[in-house]
């Protein structure tokens, strides 16, 4: 077993605790012990805190970085990844690496090892959403193509799901940069345009790798519904999908926290495609 530190951020523990649960579970199944980063604060997000005071942004971020000496800090949020990655780069600590779970799974763990651990393949039709700060600015991130990425598509396929192409795949969720917090109506308008092409594709869910995107999609759909625009497409973090494929019971995914959920998705997650059959 290898050790690393897990930095969960704000939105995962306080809106979608199931993502935190599934991160610990899935990573342990793959041979990684993640230590919780005790005493951490908000990362803080560049769109909000860096927009007010760059030094405050940097000071809070480097405080988080200094809490543990381990080489690897794992994240599961694009915003936390971006802030800690950039602050680490600027502070010039070459020994420490800031990782995002999706690129770590693809590059360090590998598809074969993931497939070998699957006990329940999930025959879902999904729309993947990468989110912005995982990939851009690509000169620093070097995760995947900023225009035509593939890593999340192949990772959902590794657990038996089908990733469907859709025209707004690379469109922003609309929630970042303080837009959802500061100008909700703008965030919802971007979201509506993002989701409209999915209406005819009958996907079982959207798969994200960032809890801010997840919150914007999940709660934003309820807000759009109140305005008479109905999509009803549930949203899962990849870690929730992966942990289910690795055998975690549905009750431990924290699905009660999701405001947009369907029986169809829960049935498919429960049943899967049994390997014995």
């Amino acid at each position, binding site marked *: 077993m290898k050790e690393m530190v897990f930095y969960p951020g704000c939105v995962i*523990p306080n809106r979608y605790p199931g993502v935190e649960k599934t991160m610990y579970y899935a990573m342990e199944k793959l041979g990684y012990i993640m230590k919780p980063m005790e005493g951490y604060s908000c990362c803080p997000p560049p769109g909000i805190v860096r927009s007010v*005071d760059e*030094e405050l942004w940097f000071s809070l971020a480097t405080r988080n970085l200094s809490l543990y000496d381990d080489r690897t800090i794992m994240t599961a949020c694009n915003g936390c990844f971006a802030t800690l990655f950039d602050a680490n780069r600027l502070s010039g600590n070459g020994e420490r690496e800031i990782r995002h779970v999706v690129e770590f799974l693809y590059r360090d763990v590998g598809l074969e090892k993931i497939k070998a651990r699957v006990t329940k393949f999930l025959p879902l039709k999904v729309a993947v959403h990468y989110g912005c700060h995982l990939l851009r600015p690509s000169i620093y991130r070097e995760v995947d193509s900023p225009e035509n990425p593939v890593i999340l598509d192949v990772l959902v396929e590794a657990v038996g799901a089908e990733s469907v192409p859709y025209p707004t795949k690379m469109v922003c969720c*609309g929630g970042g940069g*303080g837009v959802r917090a500061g100008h909700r109506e703008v965030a919802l308008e971007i979201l509506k345009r993002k989701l409209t092409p999915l209406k005819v594709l009958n996907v079982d869910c959207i798969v994200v790798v960032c809890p801010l995107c997840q919150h914007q999609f999940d709660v934003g759909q309820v807000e759009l519904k109140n305005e008479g625009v109905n999509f009803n497409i549930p949203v899962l973090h990849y870690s929730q999908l992966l942990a289910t494929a690795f055998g975690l019971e549905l009750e431990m995914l924290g699905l009660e*926290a999701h405001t947009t959920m369907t029986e169809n998705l829960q049935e498919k997650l429960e049943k899967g495609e049994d390997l014995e059959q």
Partner: protein
Amino acid sequence: MYIQMKDMLLSRKELNKVNTCIQCGTCVASCYSSRATALNTRRLVFDYINKNIPMHDDTIWYCSTCYSCQERCPRGIMLTDILIRVREEVAEEHLPSKLKKFIENIREYGMGVPPRKSDIDMRRKLGLKNYSAQFIEKSLKEVREIIDSRRDKL
């Protein structure tokens, strides 16, 4: 440390690249916020380099910082980072009040998005410990000291 960090995030050289803008419009064509709002990065840059009008427009707060414009700019101008820098310049007067609340939350709880009772209950059900600065007195004190040391900016 501050000047060095600021310089590394967006150096003077990078900032000056804005003057090489050829007004091609790739930025606004790539901008998802511009499809829903009046944000027009090309025009902001035009007014700045030709009329010396600061980019202090209220529309800069509609930018979701997706970095599509910066990624695609054929002149390599760090447009998103410039918009964030401009926001910082005008934040004192123009910061949307809800964003102010976010920073107050970090001071109060160590978290921009603090937990509600239902979140704490679900964490218990899932067997998750509470280990953020909110629950560790010494850590919360450190976070507050950092924020208070920047009070003049907030």
